[in-house]
């Protein structure tokens, strides 16, 4: 237990973390859009180095993220996306 944590220090301004406004990508959208041929979209979902963004950041459901992973790997094989940046 830390002493004086309540009284001795100025209370830090806190903001609630909200993901309400984020766009969720579920099965329907993933099926329609995640394709190894849709290179600009895949590029937006990967870093400059070609690594996939996290599910949290991309807004993917688990299913959509797996689908995205598969399509990125296909695009890499066809030299549409880099393996390393």
């Amino acid at each position, binding site marked *: 237990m830390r002493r004086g944590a309540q009284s001795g220090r100025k209370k830090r301004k*806190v*903001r*609630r*973390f*909200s*993901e309400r*406004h984020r*766009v969720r*990508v579920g099965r329907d*959208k993933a099926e*329609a*859009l995640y394709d*190894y*041929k*849709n*290179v*600009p*979209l895949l590029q*937006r*979902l990967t870093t400059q180095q*070609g690594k996939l*963004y996290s599910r*949290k*950041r*991309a*807004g993917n459901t688990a299913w959509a993220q797996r689908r995205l992973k598969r399509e990125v790997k*296909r695009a*890499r*094989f*066809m*030299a*549409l*996306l*880099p*393996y390393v940046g």
Partner: protein
Amino acid sequence: MVKYYEGMFLTHNKEARKDTDYLAAHVSGLIEKVGGTVLQMTKWDERRLAYPVKGVTHGVYFLAYFSGDAATDARLRAEVRLSSLILRHLTLHLEELPEQPIETFSEMQLRLSGGEARTALDIPAPGLDEDETATVAVPRIGDEHAPASDRRDGGER
């Protein structure tokens, strides 16, 4: 049983510059040779490769829908390996033939840029980069408090 396939073929840019039709005929000829039937075919795109393949930096992609039996894919793979014009190829088995006609890269982007797809294309909005670093810098993701920079102020909209 008839199976439907989607095949993408990466071909040599220099050869394509000489004669694109010849390359297209070469690809469809290979498919026909292994017992497949080319249903639709197009020159998908011409672009700089993400990394050099067999020393080639620019390539031309051909996209084809074709039908065949279960062994067509394996036979095609063997044929493509012998071809010096085709650098890479990817064959996918389609559950059913797509209703819309085959489209090139630019046609596909044109279709996706309008209508409902627009919102999903905008998923990782520009300006999120700062957020990502903030999340990494503050390892308490499970914390109910926001990382240093609040996402609502992160210029996502």
